[in-house]
């Protein structure tokens, strides 16, 4: 644009310079009538002539070097249709292009070239993107194969079909279909992974629950066995309490209180403590001497333990004979 500006002022340059020279010199310019008496008038006139010639040569050179700049002075704008679109174009540019038709051809060619270059750039970017996706796909494929080989998992048929379709799409150059198939494969695999995790967590949860149940059962069984053993021990060690229904109920109630107070105690300790407390209560209530208490305890004892006691042998019935059998038959038939 600066060049154009200079070209626009081409015709005014001499005038401006003449004005400047007049200001400097303090005389009128060429339009003003020269004073014939001034001795410098001839010199100025000659110099003006040289300047004009010089300016005309420069103008011609610039016009030759930049012919389009000559169009600038014409600021008219013409509506031109390029590729179906109207736009205002300076007439100078149209003239420089060699007419409207030529300008239209050049503009259309330029736009098409720009569009083609943009398309080429997009295609390159797309190609790079596809190459990157293919790399990811190949990595993922290798990972799938390694996982399959390592775990020897039986891949579902649907996944196999998807993988084969994906390969076919890659071989046929159907990039979009290959991408969609890859997304499907990844989704399916992630779902399979999730399912495996869920199954594993469920299995672990069930196993833990089962172990807890078994542990509870074993604890209950152990507690029941200890309770029964403690009960036998209680009946053996505290017969005075065990044989009396009221005292036994008191001891039972006392076991509940003791267990609530000492939940970590064993059944034997709880029952023993309860029996001792009941016995202590009896002692305090009766307030009798220890010898009498022992005597009473012995008297109250129904389970007498004897060191020399021998269990009586049961009489073995004689083997049944045939005559006895006949007698039994006769009795059964009411003959005797």
């Amino acid at each position, binding site marked *: 644009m600066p060049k154009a500006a200079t070209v626009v002022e081409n015709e005014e340059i001499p005038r401006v310079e003449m004005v400047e020279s007049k200001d400097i010199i303090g005389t009128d310019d060429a339009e003003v009538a020269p004073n014939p008496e001034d001795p410098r008038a001839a010199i100025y006139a000659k110099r003006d002539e040289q300047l004009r010639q010089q300016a005309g040569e420069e103008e011609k050179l610039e016009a030759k070097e930049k012919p389009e700049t000559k169009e600038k002075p014409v600021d008219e704008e013409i509506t031109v249709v390029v590729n179906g679109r109207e736009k205002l174009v300076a007439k100078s540019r149209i003239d420089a292009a060699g007419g409207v038709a030529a300008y239209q051809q050049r503009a259309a060619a330029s736009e098409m070239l720009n569009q083609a270059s943009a398309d080429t750039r997009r295609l390159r970017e797309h190609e790079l993107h596809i190459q990157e996706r293919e790399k990811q796909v190949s990595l993922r494929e290798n990972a799938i194969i390694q996982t399959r080989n390592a775990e020897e998992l039986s891949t579902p048929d649907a996944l196999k079909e998807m993988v084969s379709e994906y390969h076919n799409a890659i071989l046929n150059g159907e990039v979009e279909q290959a991408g969609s198939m890859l997304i499907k494969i990844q989704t399916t695999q992630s779902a399979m992974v999730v399912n495996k995790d869920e199954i594993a967590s469920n299995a672990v949860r069930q196993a833990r629950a089962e172990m807890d149940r078994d542990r509870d059962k074993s604890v209950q069984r152990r507690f029941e066995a200890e309770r029964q053993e403690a009960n036998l021990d209680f009946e053996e060690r505290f017969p005075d309490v065990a044989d009396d229904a009221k005292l036994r109920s008191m001891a039972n109630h006392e076991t509940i209180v003791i267990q609530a107070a000492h939940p970590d105690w064993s059944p034997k300790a709880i029952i023993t403590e309860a029996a001792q407390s009941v016995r202590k209560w009896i002692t305090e209530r009766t307030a009798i001497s220890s010898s009498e208490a022992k005597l009473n305890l012995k008297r109250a004892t129904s389970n007498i333990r004897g060191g020399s006691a021998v269990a009586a042998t049961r009489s073995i019935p004689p083997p049944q*004979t*045939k*005559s006895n*059998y*006949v*007698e039994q*038959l*006769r009795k059964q*038939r*009411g*003959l005797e």
Partner: protein
Amino acid sequence: MIDEEDELLQIAKLGIEAEAFVRSPLGKYLMLKANAEISAAMDDLVSADPADVKLNTEIRVHIHTAKMFIIWVNEAANIGRQAHNQLRSLEE
């Protein structure tokens, strides 16, 4: 020895069945019928013509049949008791 005892046992069981039969209502009825048949046949035999051989023979057959019924039942009961006694003696 074992076979003899088994045989005696079977005979004793048969005697028991015979005694039980005689004491059963059916046994009592049949025994009464047999005795009644015998007594009636005896009356017929007394009043029958001795020269009528055929009639006397028929009456005697009736008496013999009724007697044999009673004899066979009693015989089974008696043999059973004897077998029981033999068993006792063998076991002692």
